């Protein structure tokens, strides 16, 4: 390269700055930029985004001011207090514990686990899909057999069995156990996209010029499918909220003394509670529904942004 370089005239630094600025302007906007434009074009999506972010912030900050062990103390005088009675905003449960406080701490726990699960399982799934799709051949075959096998496992049952075997588990181990099973969907999606992507010219050019395959995978292919990754991560976050809450609902998730949205809904298992003391479980159910709808609506908008023919901001 050096020998040929002498044939060109030197470019002054000012010109270089001007040229790179011009190139930046003309280049296609980044994935984050496109998604942000799409949100600005779609008012309900922006509202959903603000609601979700504000709600998560509120729950995290408010739960700092709640003394969890004091909150979980039984107080028989407040047995099934109705909402707005004795200063309970959302009433109390069978142990006289405030539903509103449990809802805040429970939301923090449930959302936290869902977030952790999304981060761990998506990272793993993305790496798995990229490697499997990029290398192809024997590597891909082997990794796909592992994938097929994992798909066969009765997931919910396996998780419940593992949770019963491990005696001392907490939120972190629970998240890790879930992560072992919930990376499958992401990996399949990323793999099929990587398969198509790695046939493109820029990858072939990179291979010819001798770039390290890992560099091609994570520095070249991955940024090119980043919009897909953002969409998939958002949508799986919405799904993952149902994972922990579902198991906690059955009684195999978080331990009984740790409130979760699932354990709150489990109050509905008692035929008396479900009709007479509806406030013990209904707010949690409503919250899950609203949260899941809002997050996956955000995901839908991100998906629309990823597909240039569907964008609203273009019109």
């Amino acid at each position, binding site marked *: 390269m050096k020998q040929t370089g002498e044939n060109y005239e030197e470019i002054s630094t000012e010109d270089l700055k001007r040229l790179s600025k011009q190139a930046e302007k003309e280049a296609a906007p980044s994935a984050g930029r496109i998604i942000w434009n799409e949100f600005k074009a779609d008012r309900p999506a922006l509202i959903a985004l603000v609601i979700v972010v504000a709600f998560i912030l509120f729950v995290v900050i408010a739960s700092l001011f709640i003394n969890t062990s004091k909150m979980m103390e039984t107080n028989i005088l407040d047995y099934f207090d109705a909402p707005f009675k004795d200063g309970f905003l959302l009433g109390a449960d069978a142990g006289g514990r405030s539903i509103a406080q449990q809802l805040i701490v429970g939301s923090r726990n449930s959302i936290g686990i869902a977030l952790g699960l999304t981060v761990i399982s998506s990272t793993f799934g993305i790496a798995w899909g990229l490697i499997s799709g990029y290398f192809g051949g024997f590597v891909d075959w082997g990794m796909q057999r592992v994938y097929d096998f994992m798909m066969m496992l009765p997931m*919910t*049952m396996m998780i*419940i069995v593992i949770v*019963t075997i491990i*005696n001392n588990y907490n939120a972190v181990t629970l998240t890790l156990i879930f992560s072992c099973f919930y990376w499958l969907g992401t990996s399949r999606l990323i793999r099929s996209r990587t398969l198509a992507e790695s046939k493109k010219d820029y990858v072939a050019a990179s291979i010819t010029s001798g770039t390290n395959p890992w560099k091609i995978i994570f520095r070249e292919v991955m940024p090119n499918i980043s919009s897909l990754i953002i969409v998939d991560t958002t949508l799986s976050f919405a799904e993952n909220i*149902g994972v922990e809450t579902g198991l906690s609902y059955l009684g195999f998730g978080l331990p009984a003394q740790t409130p979760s949205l699932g354990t709150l809904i489990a109050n*509905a298992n008692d035929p008396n509670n479900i009709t007479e003391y*509806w406030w013990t*479980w209904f707010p949690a159910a409503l919250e899950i*529904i609203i949260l899941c709808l809002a997050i996956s609506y955000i995901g839908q908008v991100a998906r629309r942004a990823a597909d240039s023919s569907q964008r609203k901001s273009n019109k």
Partner: protein
Amino acid sequence: MWKTILRRILIMIPEIIILSIIVFLLAKAMPGDPFTGSINPRAGVAQIHHLMEVNGLYDPWYQQYWNWVVHLFHGNLGESYQYNEPVTRIIGQRAVNTLWLSLFTVVLTYLIALPMGIYAGRHEGKLPDTVIRFYTYVTYCIPFFVILVLGIWIFGYVLGWFPTTGSVSPTANGTFATIGSRFYHMLLPGILGALFGTVNIVQYLRSEVVDAKSSDYVRTARAKGVPINDIYRHHIFRNSLLPIAAFAGYSITGLLNGAIFTESVFSYPGMGLLFVNSISYRDYTVITALVLLFGILNIFGTLLSDIILSIVDPRIRIE
């Protein structure tokens, strides 16, 4: 095509072996052993040790695994501690209930999803399509157990239209009354499962129809003057029916996973509820048998779907 099916079945064998090893090791990892519970003044610790030795519980794990597999092939899955009955009999009784409920749900799902998918594909981009897509989006992202709880609350308790526990009412006498009562108990969980399980079929069928609309055979049929309704009914629907039918195998996996929630909420005595109860009672023989059974059912469900798909769609056949 036979090659594909053969390869597919060959891949299945190591899958089943690995599954059985994992299930066996999980069962070993569970606390407790089959004899400690029977310690009494006459049978002391020494005798328990003797029993453990005679029954091969001190053998290395691969030998124990081998014994377990041999028992498995003789149809011997051990005895349940909770019911003191052979596991096969207990699961047999519950399996019938789960089977009927799953079958009912699948049939209902197809009845709802097929017209929806075709309608959405036919009116692509118009109002009905938007409504159906909104419906699939809503049903897809809400966790299923929340829907079940809300459903049993509104239709079971508040309105009182449907029973809230069991699979048959104890007062039902005679064959017809029993069948009617069984059906009545399946109705609400079945409808909820079907209404909220249509996403995959609707989306697949919709995109099939959208693709078919611009394909050559449809254009030829229209040029010949075939009425548009007939094209949809006979040409497009026929073409997309088989791949859709293949989804039935995959949906077994989903339904079995969902059965744990459905049966818990509705106290419906099937295999899912049996599993949850066995976990609470630490009834390990039943748990092991159920995990193995569900795994094998999943494997066969997927096998079925893969075979149907490979017959229908030559592109999928393994090289």
